[in-house]
C-alpha cells in the first residue's frame, strides 16, 4: 500500500499523471427563419437557422439536409445540403419523378464537435407544403399613359405547382378597372400576346382612358385549387403634352433684329421634336406612337407669308441663287401632334410656346439674309 501511494505521489510530482475531462456532446436545434409562415411548393429562399452549443466550448460543425416527401415517403436523396449556420433552400421542389406532388419538407440537421462527438438525437423538422398560389407580374408599353391613347398592359401569371394553361385544370384570370373619382370613361380590350406555355400565362389588354387621373388595373388569378392572388397596377394617365422643337439646324432666329446669312444652298431642318405620342423622328414599329406634323411657311422678299402646303417633312432647302443679295427671306416651321392644337401666337413672334414652359416651342423661325 505504501508502495502504491509512493508511485502515485511520484507520478503527480513528475507531471506524468493527469485526468482527462470527459468530452460532452453538443446540442443543436432547428429554427425556421420565419416561424409560422407557410411554405409552399416552388417557394424560393426558404430559410432555416441552426442553434448549436457545446458544453466544452468546441465549435460545432453542422450538416443540413433537405428531403422532399410525398405522404410518408421521402426521396432517398436530399435535394439540397449545406454546412452553414443558415440553411437557405433555393427552391422547394414541386413533384417527384413520377409526377406526384410533394406535401412535406423534411429538414435534417446534424451537429458534430471538434472531437467528433455528435449531437443526439439529430434534429428533424417536418414542414407541411401548401399549394403555391399564382404570381402576377405586370408590365406596360414603355411610355407614359396619355388620354385617348391606348396603352398595352401585360400580366404574366406563373404558378410554381400548377400548370397555368392546362385544359383539364382551368386557370382563371379576370381583369377589372378601378376608375378615378372623376371619370368612368375607358376601354379595356383584349390584346393578343404570345409567350404562354405550361408555366407562364401571358395576357394583354389595351387600355385607353379618356380622362386624366390615377386608374387602377386589378388582375385576379385563381389556380385550379381555388387559391387566389390579386395584384393592382396604378396607371397615372396624363393629358397629352404639346410637342417641342428640341434640335434643329442651322441656328434659328430668336431676336427680331438678327438674321442668318445665306451664302450657300442650305437645308433648314428640325432634327428632333419631342412629344409623348408623336415624336420626330418616329419610333419604328409602334402601333400607337405617331410622328410630328410639320407646317412650313415662307415670306419671300417683299412678300407676305405663303404656306408651303406641299412640304410635310422636317426639312426645306433654300438656295441664295434663287434670290438677290441682301434679300430677306423668312422661313418658318410650326409643329403639331395628333391633337392639332393651333400654334396661335402672333405672326410676328419668332417662337411660340403654348405651354408655361417657354423652352418648349412649337414654332421656329429662320430670318435669312441672302449674301
Amino acid at each position, binding site marked *: 500500500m505504501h508502495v502504491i501511494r509512493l508511485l502515485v505521489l511520484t507520478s503527480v510530482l513528475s507531471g506524468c499523471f493527469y485526468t482527462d475531462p470527459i468530452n460532452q456532446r453538443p446540442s443543436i436545434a432547428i429554427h425556421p427563419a420565419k416561424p409560422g409562415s407557410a411554405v409552399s411548393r416552388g417557394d424560393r429562399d426558404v430559410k432555416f437557422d441552426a442553434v448549436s452549443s457545446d458544453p466544452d466550448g468546441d465549435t460545432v460543425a453542422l450538416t443540413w439536409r433537405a428531403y422532399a416527401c410525398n405522404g410518408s415517403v421521402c426521396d432517398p436523396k436530399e435535394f439540397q445540403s449545406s454546412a452553414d449556420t443558415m440553411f437557405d433552400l433555393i427552391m422547394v421542389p414541386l413533384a417527384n419523378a413520377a409526377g406526384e406532388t410533394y406535401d412535406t419538407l423534411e429538414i435534417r440537421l446534424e451537429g458534430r464537435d471538434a472531437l467528433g462527438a455528435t449531437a443526439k438525437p439529430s434534429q428533424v423538422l417536418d414542414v407541411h407544403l401548401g399549394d403555391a398560389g399564382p404570381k402576377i407580374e405586370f408590365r406596360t408599353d414603355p411610355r407614359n399613359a396619355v388620354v385617348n391613347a391606348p396603352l398595352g398592359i401585360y400580366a404574366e401569371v406563373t404558378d410554381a405547382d400548377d400548370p397555368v394553361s392546362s385544359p383539364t385544370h382551368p386557370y382563371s384570370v379576370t381583369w377589372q378597372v378601378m376608375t378615378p373619382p372623376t371619370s368612368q370613361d375607358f376601354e379595356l380590350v383584349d390584346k393578343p400576346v404570345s409567350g404562354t406555355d405550361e408555366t407562364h400565362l401571358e395576357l394583354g389588354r389595351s387600355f385607353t382612358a379618356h380622362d386624366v387621373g390615377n386608374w387602377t388595373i386589378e388582375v385576379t388569378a385563381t389556380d385550379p385549387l381555388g387559391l387566389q392572388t390579386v395584384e393592382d397596377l396604378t396607371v397615372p394617365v396624363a393629358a397629352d403634352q404639346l410637342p417641342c422643337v428640341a434640335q434643329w439646324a442651322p441656328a434659328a432666329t430668336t431676336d427680331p*433684329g438678327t438674321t442668318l*446669312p445665306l*451664302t450657300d*444652298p442650305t437645308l433648314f431642318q428640325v432634327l*428632333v421634336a419631342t412629344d409623348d405620342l408623336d415624336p420626330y*423622328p418616329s419610333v419604328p414599329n409602334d402601333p400607337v406612337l405617331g410622328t410630328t406634323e410639320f407646317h412650313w411657311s415662307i415670306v419671300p422678299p417683299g412678300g407676305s407669308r405663303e404656306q408651303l402646303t406641299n*412640304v410635310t417633312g422636317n426639312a*426645306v432647302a433654300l438656295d441664295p441663287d434663287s434670290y438677290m443679295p441682301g434679300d430677306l427671306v423668312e422661313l418658318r416651321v410650326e409643329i403639331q401632334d395628333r391633337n392639332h392644337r393651333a400654334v396661335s401666337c402672333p405672326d410676328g413672334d419668332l417662337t411660340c410656346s403654348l405651354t408655361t414652359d417657354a423652352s418648349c416651342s412649337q414654332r421656329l423661325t429662320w430670318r435669312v439674309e441672302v*449674301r
Partner: protein
Amino acid sequence: MSRFGFVLVLVLALVGCGFGGADGIRSDAGGQSDDANGCSSVLIFDPASPVAGDHIKVTAQVFGPGVLDYVWQVDGVSNTHYEGPGTGTNHHSAIGFDAPTANSHTVNVEILGSSGCSSAQQTINVMNPNGTLVMYRVRLTPPAALAPPQETLIQVHGGQNANRPFAVDPGTVLSGTVTAGSAIDAYVKFTPVLGPAFDLVTTGAFTTHLQLQAHTVLVIPQNNALAPRLFTWMPGMGPNAFPVDAGTPVGGTVLDRGGAPLANAQVQLEQLGVPSTIATTAANGTFTAHHTFDATDPITVTITPPATSGLARLTATAAFDLTKSIQISYAASPATCNLAGTPVTRATSPQPNALVTVVGALVGTAGTVTTGGISANATGAVHVAAIASGAGALPSMLVPRAALSAVIEVAAGDFAVASLDTSTCAAQTLDAPAAIVATGQIENATATTTLAGARVEAVPIGALALANLIPVEATSDSSGHFALALAAGAHYALHFFDPGGRGAPHDYPDETASGVPGEALLNAAIAISGQVTVIGFPNAVANASIQILCADCTGVAASQPIAATATDGTGAYRIAVPDPM
C-alpha cells in the same frame, strides 16, 4: 496571329485625354475601362476584324495590382475556352470561341480581386466574308447643353446588322463675345478640323460647346458696314473675344455690256468661305466693299445686276490683287430681249398674276473681272423674275438672248417649267401646263408588302431648282399608294424612305413626273443600333439626333440624311440603312 498579321486594340488610348481621335466621336466605347484609382483594362481581339468562320481569341490586359481571376461572358456564345498562357489566373486571362456566323457579340469580363478594375466590355462585329463594304458618315447631334455636333465614318458590311455604340466627346465650353468696340449682333459659324460645322446667332455674348480640337470661327456681323472675319480657335488657348471692324476697303467699277456704268449692281467677294460686305454700285458704277482676306488664296467675285437690267449674274474666281481697283465689265454679247407682252397661259387661258422666273446659264464668257494685271473670265447665270399682269401678260422684262427656261408659278405652290429660247427674241407664249399628279405604290425590297406610312420627297433639280428648292412630299396611304403633284416640265430627285424602318431609302436622282415609278421598292435594309453616351456623364443621352449621310457628297446633299433617328429615353437608337449586299 490573325490572317492580317496584326492585332488591333479596339479601344482608343486617348479616351482619358479627352481627344477623340480622327472621327471626333468615340465609337465602340467601353473596351477600355479606366477606373478612378488608376487601374485600366483593355480587351484585345484576335483577329481584330473577324469574319464568319473565324476562331476569336480575346485577351484581357489589366494594368493594375491584385488581379485574382477573370470571369468571362460572351453574348450569343455558349462554348468558350480559356486560352491564356500557363495555368491558373494567367490561363483565365484570355478566352477563345468560334464564330460560325456573321453576328455581333458583346464580350464582358469581370476582373476579380483587383483593387481598381472591376470589368471591361466590348462588342465585336463578326463580318460576312462575302459582304460588300460601304462607308457612311454618322452625324450625331446631342442636346446642345451636353456636347457639340460630331461626325464619324463607319464601315458597314453587307447582309448583317451592326452594333455601333457612340461615346461623344463633350469638349469644352466657350463663352465668347463678338465686339466692335462693344458687343454687337452677329452670326457665328464654328468649323472644327474634323467634324460638322454648326452655327449660332448672337446679340454679342454667347456660350457653346466645342470639341477639343482646332476650329475656324467665322463671324459675320449683322451690320453690313463691318467686315466678316475668320478666327482660329484652339482649345485652352482661345480666343474668347472676337473683335470685328470695317476691314480693308477695296473699290471698283462695274460697266454694262455697252461699257456704260451700271448702277445698283451688288458686288460681293468671297475667299475660303469668308464673304466681304455687300457693296452696291453708285450711279457712276463705282463701289467699295470691305474684307479681311489674305493676299494668297483665290477670291471669288459675284456681281448681281439690278433686276431690270436684263444682265446675267457674273461670277469669276482668281487670285485677284485687292490692293488694286476691281474692274468688272459685261461682255457685249448676248444682247437683251424684252419679254413685255408675252402671254402666260395654261391650256390657252391667260394666267393673271403668275410669277415668272427666267433662269439659265449663259454659254461662254459673260464678262471679265480685272485687278491690275490679273484678269478672269466670268460665267453668267440668269435669274430674272416678274409678275404677269391681270390680263396674264408679262410686263417689261429684260433677259439675255439665250436658250433659257421659265419657271411659272401660277398659284402658290403650283409650278410649271417651260423652255424659253430668246436667242432671236421672237414673240412667243409661255404655257404653264397643269401640275401632273404622279401616283404609285411603295413596297418593301422584295415587293411582297405594300408599305403604309412610307414617304416620298421630290426635290427640285435643274431649272426649277434655280427658282426654288421647295420639295413636294407625300405619305403613302393604308395600301401603300402615294400621289405627288409635280410641276410639268420639271426635274426632281426622288427620295423614297420609310420612317418605320421596314426598308432602306431608294433614291432616283433625276426624274420627271412621267418617270415617277409606279412601283417604288425600298432597298433591302440592315440595322445599325447602339447606345449613345457622353464621356464623363453617367447617363445615356436621350433625344440625340443621329443622321446617316453619304460619305463623300457635297452641297445640300451633304446634309441631306439617308436615314435619321433619335435616341430614346435610354440613349438607345436603331436605324435602317441600305444593305450594300
